[in-house]
């Protein structure tokens, strides 16, 4: 026995596990850094803005000058100040929507996948109905009825994104149910909630992060699109999506009034995209090796 004891000690090189594995991905790190930087900018922005974002500082569509570094918009307001102040809504609405979608979606997915039965059937079928309805239409309809309140918008985005999350996570969880470690846990009588939290949840961490990144991008997309078509944040408030549509006609003469908010939206969505991409690659790598 002593011989075996000493000879079975050679182990493979240490491999980081869980969330650290994901953090080790450069893309995930850059995504998080980008999002943190954007959030900081949005929070600090209103305080460092040179002018009141709602007050005109010059004539409409004035090109960049020493007075207005990025020029003025359709009403002669300072573009830089509006860009710095225009992310406030997105900065809290998008992450909250994305987080709620992923948390609720994952909870629904794991619980229904584990317990099966008729609740599973009813829940997944009602999610199918939600999925069968284009999110933008639902949002448009509801906003036209109840008005563009931020809480309502968040609720609608969650309602739009959550079914997709549930489907993906459910798809990732179902094969796990036949894994021997889950069978073992069932066989020794581990309670369902414990199996869900201890055996299933840690093993869907990568798809969860992919979904979080993806849904963050999409939340930003839906919310800014709503502003863009005039059913999100209402004028005269400063908002990136709104700025794009307000200043669209001046694109030829004063492109900065459109391109500056667009750049902000792009940076914000890329942050989520990078996280999703990095997590997906980590997933592909580890699955390849099992």
């Amino acid at each position, binding site marked *: *026995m002593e*011989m*075996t*004891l000493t*000879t*079975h*000690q*050679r*182990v*493979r*090189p*240490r*491999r980081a*596990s*869980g969330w650290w594995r994901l953090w080790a991905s450069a893309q995930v790190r850059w995504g998080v850094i980008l999002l943190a930087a954007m959030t900081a900018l949005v929070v600090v922005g209103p305080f460092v803005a040179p002018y009141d974002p709602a007050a005109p500082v010059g004539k409409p569509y004035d090109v960049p000058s020493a007075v207005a570094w990025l020029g003025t918009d359709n009403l002669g307001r300072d573009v830089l100040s509006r860009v710095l102040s225009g992310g406030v809504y997105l900065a809290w609405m998008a992450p909250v929507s994305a987080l709620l979608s992923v948390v609720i979606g994952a909870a629904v997915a794991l619980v229904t996948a584990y317990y099966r039965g008729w609740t599973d059937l009813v829940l997944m079928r009602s999610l199918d109905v939600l999925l069968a309805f284009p999110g933008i239409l639902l949002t448009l309809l509801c906003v036209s009825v109840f008005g563009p309140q931020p809480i309502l918008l968040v609720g609608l985005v969650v309602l739009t994104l959550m079914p997709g999350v549930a489907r993906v996570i459910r798809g990732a969880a179902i094969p796990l149910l036949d*894994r*021997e*470690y889950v*069978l*073992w*846990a*069932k*066989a*020794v*009588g*581990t309670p369902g909630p414990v199996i869900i939290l*201890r*055996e299933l949840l*840690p*093993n869907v*961490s990568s798809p969860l992060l992919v979904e979080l990144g993806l849904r963050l991008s999409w939340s930003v997309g839906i919310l800014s699109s709503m502003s863009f078509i005039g059913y999100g944040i209402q004028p005269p408030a400063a908002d990136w999506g709104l700025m794009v549509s307000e200043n669209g006609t001046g694109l030829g003469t004063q492109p900065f009034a459109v391109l500056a908010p667009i750049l902000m939206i792009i940076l914000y969505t890329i942050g989520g995209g990078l996280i999703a991409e990095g997590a997906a690659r980590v997933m592909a790598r580890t699955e390849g*090796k*099992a």
Partner: protein
Amino acid sequence: MMTVLRASGLTVERSDGAPIVEDVSLSLDKGEVMGIVGESGSGKSTLALALLAYARRGVRIAGGSVRVAGTDMLELDAADLRKARREVVAYVAQDPGAALNPMLTLGTLLTEGLAGGRAEKVTRAREILRKVGLPDDEAFLQRRPRQLSGGQQQRIAIAMAVIAKPKLIILDEPTTGLDVSTRAKVLDLIRQLCISDDLTAIYVSHDLAVIANVADHVTVMYGGQVVEQGRMQEVLATPRHPYTRALLDAVPSLQVRQDLRPIRGRVPAVGEAPDGCIFSDRCDYAVDACSTQPALRLVGGTQVRCVRPELAQTFEMRPQAVSRSERQGASRPAVLQADGINAFYGHRQILFDVGLKVEPGRCLAVVGESGSGKSTLSRCLIGLHGNVTGEFRLDGKPLPLTVGERDQHARQRLQYIFQNPNASLNPRRTIGQSLAAALVNRPEASGYGTIIAEALERVGISPDLATRYPAELSGGQRQRVAIARALVANPGVLLCDEVTSSLDVSVQASVIELLRSLLADGLGMLFVTHDLAVVRNIADTVAVLSAGRVVEQGGADKVLSAPSHPYTQSLLANTLQLPTEAVPAIAPRQYVGGSW
């Protein structure tokens, strides 16, 4: 005799320069079969592919030459190489289910490489189908691979390889995934083709018994190097390399219960080989001289890579039969008993009136081929198969059929070890956490740390590894941890489901030894397997399962030595064995000749 294959100095490297196959030379005359044997990670498959001038992604053939029937495979341009692969060397992969394109018909698969008109091609296809024992009608040619059984698929793969009458055929574990009886038939086919078509073949396998039954020559691979090479009988009779010797000692025998000797340690990963002799860190006979790498040299007719091959003559002989540790004839009260078990999937009945009995300190083996219902049976015993009727008794008391109805004590007394060590532990929890989860079900247990450490030590794993994740362990280590997790619950019965079938033979030996020692401690054990040699080496009683029914049940010696049911007899007849002690007396070719 004409030399068909002459490979020399063949070296295959990973893109970072780490060798996977190092300086391998092979030579084979027309009509001969060379077996290449090695455990997982020995580089045998990479070598087989290199003979076709093929390297997987991230791998390249770094040096050497391969001449097949006058063609230098490594010097050809792309077009000539394709021609050579069509007409000179052919390849048969391990898993025909994966190697046959599911979207194409058998007719296309067989004839797409051939030259000539359609009628001519179809004639050839029919001819070859008859030869491999398959139907040759048009309807069959229109089928797709998924519509065939595993054995038929492998016949198609072989037909595909030989249809263009290649000079050399390379078979990479062609029978590994098949059931015993199917395997025997496919092996028969290969032998028959070798004779009738005068085929020259390379047969790659991890299974020495299979190689011993088809090959004239054998090459033993370890860590990418050839450690021994010679005529089959010669190597079997007098293995000169300690690794060959150890490999032979680790193979369980169908005839006698042996003292199996595991090889300690593990096969080195690519790029992690020790300096000097590649086997030195696992070798029981290593000396200082082993720190320099020995060259292959000719000793008494075989090539050996060892500094002192003469030592082989002083090795102990193959381990002798051991008597059972505990052999009271009188049966003891059963720990676990099942009566009249019927199980269903939907309306289909899988198990028919199955009854069995597990006694403390003894092992009941449940033997069956795929589809016999043996996995359903183990799921029923675990209580995870809902659609079941019958009666279970644990320690004489009735045991509910499903796990939800069983009490904590019953769940503790029955513990399970699964086939696949890669999935039996949660990859996101440390070894210690996985074991602690088992302890939660033992409320009286205190001092988790001590119990976990004891269990790990009992299975030969250092308690220091409790902080590691499963991915950091080898397959054998993971299987030991799974056993430790079962032991932590302080069980009365272990249900082992094919626990050794995915392990290398050297690791399998160590797990069997461990399970035997647990039996000696008084645990009852139910061991589900398809491997009769493993049964011989661990079981006290045997139940043979066929199509959901127990067709034969009794003492292991009696069932394996004098089977009464035809199904058991055919299983036994089809199980391949290493020739026993008197090796030279049973030359493989003679055995082959006798079989048809």
